[in-house]
């Protein structure tokens, strides 16, 4: 009896080994924040990547091999991403890595991938300092300075505003990064900054700043910050009688913003990577498939990770193998990849050149205003 069990397990073991050796599979490590403070964003991102992988596999996989995602959760905690990426590199021996969600987590992952010469593509980390880490580090979204330029240009051309106030969240690299480029571009193109105000993440009382803001009567207020503070600022500003339109960036993108700000959010604009209201048929197809799979409307994060996953798969296909060096070279040659967030080309600095969208909030719902090309 015992001998039979021994032989049976040996046979099973060997056959699994054989199957894995002969058939092969393409392994891609995916790391994001599935729990902890950033989980609402992280879950969207991984859902986008999974949907892309499922579509690729149901269409026959990559190079006739199934695409296997090894998904791990950094719990929104610093240090975890580095641990996970080490595991991807040494234990799972992945062909490429997709991640992380935020700039600071990606900063942990990128040097490790670079040292191991395994390509890493982040679909959402916007800080400029990421891709200079090495030639194996790629990004498929636009960067903070792009958001700043788009916001400034929109205020100048679309709102015809010249007198502006900017409010910056000095605790967030994102806010500071967008603001720097915005101020420069706005000033160089005929705009005038009346006042520069600042606050810190976690503040809930902005009356001191808003009282000053109201006194200079700006035509537009730039607010490149994240939605928890933005929603309260919009609300307090309207109650204090500030009537100028607010213009923000992708940090505004959350349903919570309208829940908290209510009708105070109406008439504001923000630049984003993606709008589910975009009439483009590629977008509408993606929205329909995503809704069918997850019963939710995809946000920008889901769309960006969906594109990132498909872009990676496309590069592996073009590389013709799962050799990390070849995938890197194929990624570097990405031109006009057709994604739901627009056509993506990767430039010499391994950053994406791609369009953004401007959306507005009207009666609590998001409406697309225009697509902005780089």
């Amino acid at each position, binding site marked *: 009896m015992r001998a039979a069990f021994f032989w049976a397990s040996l046979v099973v073991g060997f056959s699994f080994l054989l199957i894995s050796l002969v058939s092969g599979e393409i392994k891609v490590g995916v790391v994001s924040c599935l729990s902890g403070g950033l989980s609402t964003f992280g879950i969207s991102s991984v859902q986008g990547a999974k949907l892309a992988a499922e579509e690729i596999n149901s269409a026959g996989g990559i190079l006739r091999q199934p695409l296997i995602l090894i998904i791990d959760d950094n719990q929104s905690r610093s240090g975890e991403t580095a641990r996970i990426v080490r595991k991807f590199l040494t234990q799972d021996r992945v062909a490429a890595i997709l991640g992380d969600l935020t700039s600071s987590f990606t900063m942990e992952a990128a040097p490790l991938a670079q040292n191991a010469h395994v390509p890493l593509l982040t679909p959402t980390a916007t800080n400029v300092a990421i891709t200079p880490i090495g030639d194996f580090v790629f990004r498929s979204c636009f960067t903070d300075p792009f958001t700043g330029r788009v916001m400034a240009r929109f205020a100048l051309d679309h709102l015809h505003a010249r007198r502006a106030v900017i409010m910056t969240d000095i605790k967030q690299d994102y806010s500071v990064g967008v603001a720097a480029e915005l101020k420069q571009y706005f000033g160089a193109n005929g705009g005038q900054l009346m006042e520069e105000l600042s606050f810190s993440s*976690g503040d*809930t009382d902005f009356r001191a700043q808003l009282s000053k803001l109201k006194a200079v009567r700006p035509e537009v207020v730039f607010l490149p910050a994240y939605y928890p503070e933005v929603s*309260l600022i919009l609300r307090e500003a309207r*109650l204090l009688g500030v009537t100028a339109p607010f213009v923000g960036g992708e940090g505004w993108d959350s349903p919570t913003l309208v829940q908290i700000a209510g009708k105070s959010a109406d008439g504001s604009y923000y630049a984003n990577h993606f709008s589910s209201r975009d009439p483009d048929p590629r977008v509408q197809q993606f929205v329909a498939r995503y809704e069918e799979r997850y019963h939710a409307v995809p946000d920008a994060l889901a769309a960006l990770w969906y594109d990132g996953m498909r872009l990676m798969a496309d590069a592996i296909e073009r590389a013709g193998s799962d050799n990390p060096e070849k995938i890197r070279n194929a990624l570097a040659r990405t031109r006009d990849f057709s994604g739901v967030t627009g056509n993506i080309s990767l430039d010499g600095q391994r950053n994406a050149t791609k369009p953004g969208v401007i959306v507005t909030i009207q009666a609590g719902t998001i409406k697309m205003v225009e697509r902005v090309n780089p």
Partner: protein
Amino acid sequence: MDQVILFVQQLLNGLSLGSIYALIALGYTMVYGVLRFINFAHGDVYMLGAFSGFMIAPTVSRLIPLDKFQEFTPANALLIIIGAGLVMIISMLICAVTGVLIERIAYRPLRDRPRLTVLITAIGVSLLIQNMTQFFFGPQPRAFPQLIPVEAIPGLGDLTVLTTQAAIILSTVLLLIVLHLIVTKTKMGLAMRALSVNPTACSLMGVNNDVVISFTFALGSALAAAAGILVSMDSPSITPMMGNLPGIKAFVAAVLGGIGNIPGAAIGGLIIGVLETLVVGYLRPELRDAIAFAVLIVILLFKPTGILGRVEREKV
């Protein structure tokens, strides 16, 4: 806008912020009075107050449609005040019970241990409450339902005072009067004051110290809950971590006023609130959180007993 009006506006803003700190600071100072220890979980009771309101408001709104009123009118004013008051009182009761439970479970067994042990336990309780709340409600900010219509009070010219700011200041004044009456006119208040002078003598006179301590925790926690509700009415975004900074700043306010001294805590809270608003308005907004701690350092260096505190001699 005229500079004078802007200054008055900032003072008013500071006053409403300071009222919140005052309400929280009272809890610190009362507990310090009877137990000689800083209850670092107090800021989280304030957070629980906001979350209790978040849970109760929809139920009350089914009886009185608080979230539907667009503005105050003579006809609906009384109804709104009753409804909002109901939410506030129920939340205060919930937090009073929570405060008593925290003391009973976490602090009472350690009453005779070194004070440092209880202090560390308080930090543990604080983390426990924060993470439990995060577990049940998630870490992302939640929208607090409307309790009173938010609008600028008319007839003030260039000054903007919101109904919520007025509610904060008026409720604080009301609660301070009630607290004063409890402390000075009731037997329980007398026992509290006696306990803060000498616990041993107090129990020898037949006072049940445990009951008095429980009552103190209930009172302090109820005030913190009121602060939580008032703040959430004014800026309707609540998170499990919202009690951290206000809690610490209110602690500074209590030290500033003289820890253990009840009117001192109220005055300290108002000073910290006004200072903070003026610093943000006239100096640099990034110093907002630094100012409270700068005040703490100055106070500890030059007048450790605070504004109204008495020097306590170590008895040999």
